C-alpha cells in the first residue's frame, strides 16, 4: 500500500521544518511508524527530560488520530503505566486537519499542564490531587531517573 501523499508531505515537513523540542523519525521499514522524542517543557516537572514515544499512523489516518504512546516511564496523571495518553485530540477531538506535528505539540503541552481531573493513571491523579508537591517531586525524580537525555544525543 502506497503511502498517502499527506503522510509523505508531513514527514518531509517534520524534517525540513522541525518543531523545537520535538523529534519524529519514521522507521525505514515502516514509514507509518515514527520514533519520537519530546523534550519536557520548561517550568514543568519534566523539564530536562527527553521522553521517547512511538507514533503510528493507522490505515484510516487522517480520518482517525495517530496512535501515540510513551515509551519512557513518566509520572503523569494523564499517562498510564503502559504509556498510554489521555488526550482529547487523540480521541474525540481529533480532526483530520490535525497533523503529527500538532499532535506532538499537544502531547508536549500536556506535560506542561497535567490534568488530574481527567485521569488515566488513577493513583497518580489521586496523589496529584492530594499532595501536588509530592507528586511533582516524584515526577521530577522519575524524569531524572528515566528520561535522561542519551549521551549520544548530547554529543
Amino acid at each position, binding site marked *: 500500500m502506497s503511502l*498517502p*501523499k*499527506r503522510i509523505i*508531505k*508531513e514527514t518531509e515537513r517534520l524534517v525540513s521544518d522541525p518543531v523545537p523540542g520535538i523529534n519524529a523519525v519514521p522507521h525505514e521499514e515502516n514509514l507509518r511508524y515514527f520514533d519520537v522524542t519530546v523534550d519536557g517543557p520548561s517550568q514543568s516537572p519534566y523539564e530536562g527530560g527527553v521522553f521517547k514515544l512511538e507514533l503510528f499512523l493507522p490505515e*484510516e489516518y*487522517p*480520518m*482517525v488520530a495517530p496512535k501515540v504512546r510513551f515509551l519512557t516511564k513518566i509520572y503523569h496523571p494523564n499517562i498510564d503505566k503502559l504509556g498510554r495518553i489521555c488526550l482529547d485530540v487523540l480521541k474525540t*477531538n481529533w*480532526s*483530520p*486537519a490535525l497533523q503529527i506535528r500538532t499532535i506532538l505539540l499537544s502531547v508536549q503541552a500536556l506535560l506542561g499542564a497535567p490534568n488530574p481531573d481527567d485521569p488515566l493513571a488513577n493513583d497518580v491523579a489521586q496523589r496529584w490531587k492530594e499532595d501536588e508537591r509530592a507528586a511533582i517531586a516524584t515526577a521530577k525524580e522519575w524524569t531524572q531517573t528515566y528520561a535522561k537525555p542519551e549521551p549520544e544525543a548530547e554529543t
Partner: protein
Amino acid sequence: MSTSGASPPPKKRRFFKDDDTYLIPVDDIHLPKKASGELFPKNQLSSPRESLRDTVTSSPTHETPISSPQADNNVLDETKLEVPDTVFAEPETTSLIDRGLLESITGFEFSDFDFNFLSAICENDINQAVNAIFDGTYATKLQEAKDNAKAVNLSPFFPSAITTEEPRTSSEKSEASSNSPSEATDIRVKNDSESPKITSPFDWKERYLGSFQVEGWATRSGYGLIKYGDKITLKRIARQATLTPGSKRIGSKIKAAENDIMVKFLNNRGQEVGRLPTDKAKFVSALLDLKIGSFSGSCIFANERLATGDNIYLQLDCFLSRTAFDKQDLGSNSTHQLGRASVFDKGRETSDERHLRIRHLAMVKLFMDIGLEPVATNDLIKTHQARGKLESEAMAEQFDVKVGSAAAEESNTDSDISGDDESKDVEQDQLDALYRKAQSYDAGMPEIEPGSTFNMELRPYQKQGLGWMVSKETFENIDSARKTDSMHPLWEEYRWPVADNEVPAQEPNDRFYANPYSGELSLKFPRMTQSSLGGILADEMGLGKTISTMSLIHTNVADASYRCLEEKKRFAASTTLIIAPMSLLTQWESEAHASSKTGSTRIFVYYGDDRSVDLHHLCLGPDACKTPVVVITSYGTLSSEWQRHNRGQVSKLFSMHYLRVVIDEAHTIRNRTSLISRSCCDVKADRKWALTGTPIVNRLEDLYSLVKFLGIEPWNHFPFWRTFVTAPYDSKDYLKALDVVQTILEPILLRRTKDMKQKDGTPLVVLPPKSVVIENIELTETEREVYDLFYRRAKQTFTNSVAAGTVMKSYTTIFAQILRLRQSCDHPALVQSAVNSEELKVEDDDDNDQLSAAKQDNGILDHEDDVNLQQLINKFNAQEQEMNAKDVYGLEVMQQITDEQDHECPICLAEPIIDQVVTSCWHMSCRDCILAHIRFEKDRNQIPRCHSCQAEISEDNLFEVVYHSSPGKIKPDIALRRYKPQSSAKISRLISKLKAIRAEEPNCKSVVFSQFTSFLDIIESSLKRDRFRCLRIDGSTTQKERGRVLEKFRIESGELVLLLSLKTGGVGLNLVSANKAFMMDPWWSFAVESQAIDRIHRMGQTQSVSVYRFIVRDSVEERMLKIQDRKKFLASSLGMMSDEQKKMNSIEDMKLLFD
C-alpha cells in the same frame, strides 16, 4: 321423333349417322344428338334452359335422374358414346345447309357473314358445318380468313362449346359444367346461352392440356363393367340433393362443396363404376367445380370381374376451359394485383380468396400430375417454385382451418414431397451461390465518373456505386432489356400439348402462361412489369451514401426527352426529393451544397417555416434555373402533408411527380403500417432510392416496406411477401426465407462494407484505429442501496411472474422495473421520477412503452421501504442552485476564499485545494477530503464536525466554489453552489476521465452518449461545474438548433463535449471532429451503440478513436453485456426475429438479468 323409350340406346352413335331416323323437317328442327333420339323444335331451342327443362319433362327416364344412376347414365352415355366416333369429318348427308337447323343444332345464331362463311368452307354440308363448328375447324378457318383479309368485322359468333378436341370431350365438359341433365347437345346450347357471345373467333371453349393416370377404385362389383379402352365419364357428386347427371355446384356453393370432393366415374353405359382416389378427386373436383377444366378418360386396366374396392386404372385427359383464362373469372382482374392485398393485409380470407386458393391448389396439382413442364420460366423463382407455391397453400390452409379441406392438405403434403425431391439439390446449390453473391461485392464493377457539376472527388468504390445506381435508373432504356421482353417473374410459359388424336394446331398461339403462385392462367404474355427504377443503397455507414446519392443526382440528370407521364404538368422533371430524418436535414443540405459546384444546383429545404414557399410553382414553373434540383424534407413533414393530402387538401409535396425520390435512413419506414411508411410509398417518382445502412433492423418485414416503397413487383404485394418470406420464416425455415429475401434483394441492393477490398486489394476505407474500453464503475454506497432496492423488487416481480407463468403478461411491468435498474446505475436521481410519478424522460420508442409501463408501475412503490427509498433518492436531488458568494458570506469571506484558493487543503495537504468547497463555518478543503471525512464520521456514528472548528457540518451544507472567468477580468468571479451531495459514480468517472483527457490532449473533442435525457441533464450540469464546454442535442432540440450545434462542434477549436441522446445522436450524424466517445449506459443490442460509435469512427476521421463504455460492476449493466454478446450471435446466425420471438428472447434476457 319422340323419345323412343326410357332406356338409353344400347350403342353409341354418331351425330348424323342415323340421320334418316332423326332427321326432321326444317320447321321441326332436330337436335343432332340422337342418343336419346329427342328432337327439339326450333322454338324451344331459342330458350335453351326451357328447352332443357322441357326435355327433361318429356323424358320420364330423365326425370328422376338422381335417384337413378341409370338415368344419369343415359345422358352421359350418349355423350360418351359419340366420342369414340369422332369421325365427324365424313359427313353422310350432303345438302344445302339449313340455317335454322344448324342454329338449332349448335344453339348459336349465325350472322349472315358467319353463315355464309360456314357454308363456304363446309361446302354446304350441314354435317360438315356442325363438325366444323365443334371441332374447331371453323374457328381456324375463320381465323385464317381473318388473318388474310384483316377482316375486322367478323361477327362475334363463336360456338363456345367447341373445343379443339373431339366433340364428345366437349360435351362431357359441358355436362360437367352444366346444371341440367340432358343430352350433350342441350348442354352445349345451354352453355352458349349462358356465356355471352364470344368476342373473337380465335376463342375456343376448351383445350387439351394433358393426361395422367389414375388408380380409381370400384364402387360396384360385377362382370364386364368396364374394360380396356372403354371411355369413362367423370361425374361430380354434389353434396346437395340436386344431383343430376354431370351436375356440379358452382359459385356461391363452392364453399359448401369444398369438403365434398367425390368424383365418380361412369362406364360407357353410364353406370357408375367407381370413384377417383381422394388425392386426385380433390383437385379434379375443384377443377370441375370451378369450370377450369374438364376431363375425359378411358380405362387402361380393370379386372374383368370387378369387386368393390378393386383398382381400376384410368387415363384422364384434361382440358382447360377458355374461361379459366379469363382474368375476371375469379375476381383477379390483374396479374399484377393478384394480391387483393388489402384483404390479405387484414389477415382474412374472403370467399374470393378461397376460390383462388382452391383453384391455385388444383392447378398446381394438376400440372404436377400431368407432368407439364414450362417451356420458359424465370430463373429467379425456379428455386422457390416447387416448394414455395405449395407452401403458400399450406399457409392459406392455416388461415382457414375450419373450412380448409383436409384433403387439400394431404395433397399439399404429397406435392411437397415430390417437389422436394426434385429441387433440393439445386436449391442448396443456388442458395450457396446466392449467399456468395450477396456477400461479395464485385470489385470489378465498372466505375463511372460523376457529372461535371459534381464538386467532390469520389473514391473508386463510390464510382462503382455510381455506375450501379445509374444502371438501375436506366434499365428501361437498355435496348436488350426491351427486346427480350422479359416475362413476369412469377409466371411460367407452357406450350399447349397435343393430344394423341389431335392434329397439331396451326395457330400461332400455341402457348399459354400459368402463375404457379396464384393458379392464374393467361393466354397473353405476362409482361414483366417494370418496377420503379432505383434500388436500395445499403452501404455500411460511413461509406458515403449521401455523397453517392449526390453524385447520382449530378450524373443522371433529367432526360428532357424522357416523358413517361401523361400528366406532364405534374412532372418535376429535374427535381429529386430527399426525405430524411429531421436530424439529418442540415447535414443533407450542407453536403448537397458541398458536393455541387457553386451555382450549379439549387437546393431547397422544405421544412417548418420554409414550407410557405410555393414548391409546386418552383419545381414546375417555367423558369428552369429556379427549379430546385434537390428538395429536402423530413419524414414528419411528409407524413403530415400526406394526411392533408388524403383529406383532399392541397399538399405541395404530393402535388408533383418527381424525377427521383430518395429516402435516407430508409429503415425509418420499416413498419409498413406506419404513417411514415405509407406516406413514403405514396410519393410519385420515376426513380426511387432507399438509403440505409441497416435494411433489416430486426424483422424480415423491415425489408418489405422498402420493397413496397420501391415498387418491386411482385414482392410489393404483401400476400406474396408473406407467403414466401414471412411464412417460411415463421415456420422456422430461416434459410429459405433468407434465400428468398436474397433473391429479391440481389438485383436491387448494393451493399459494401468497410472491410471489403477494392480491386487492388486495399480495403474500401481505411479508418484510424478504434479502441473500445469497458470502464468498470463501482457504485457508491448510497447508489448501491438504491440499486439493490430496485433490484430486489424487480427480481421479486420477475420470480413471481415466472412462478405464476405470467411473464408474458407482466412483461411490460418487469421491463419497466429493469428500466429503473438501468437508470439507477446511471444516477439514482433518474429514478426519482418513477417515485414521484413524474414523467420519465426517455426518448426512443421502445422506451416509451417502458415509460407508460413505468407509470403504471408506480403503484408498486408503496412498500414500507419506500420512505427509505425516497430519502435515499432525495439525497441526489438537492436543488442545484448557484448563489453569489457575496450574498452568503459577505465580501470579507469572499476575499478569504479567493486568498485561500491557493492554500493547501488542511486534510490532504494538497496545494492548491482540489475542488474547493466551503463549509457552512467558512472552512475550506478539497471536496473529496471533506466528504471522506464526513462519511467516515458518519460510519462511526459520529456527528461530522468541521476539521477546523469542530462545528457540526453535513454534506448538504457544503458549497462548491465556482469560478467564472470572463475574458475582461483578471480575477475570476466567484460563485458558490451548494454541493450536490451525491453525484453518481458514473459522473465522477466521466469527469475524471475528461480531466485526464484535458491534461493529455488539450483540444480534444468528446461525445457523450446516454439513453436518458434526464441523465444528460445531470451530466451537463456536472460538466459545467467543472468548466467543460458543453453542447447538447437530444430529441427536443429543434432542427435549426441542431444544425447550429453541429456546426459549432465541427468548427470551434478547443476542448468541447457534445452530449447526445443515443437515439437521436446515434443515427446519421457526422461527428468526426471528435475522437473520444463515452457510452454512459449500455443498450440491449450493441449494434445500436456501435452505430453511435460510428458517428465519430467514420470516413473523415483522422485520429485514432477511443471509446469508453461505462458499465457498473455487478449490476444489470454487466449482464446486459452478456445479452449483447448473445444477440450478436443471434443476429449473425438468424438475422432477425419475429415479434413473438423477440419477446421470448427478451424473457430469456430477463432470466439472464436475474440469474
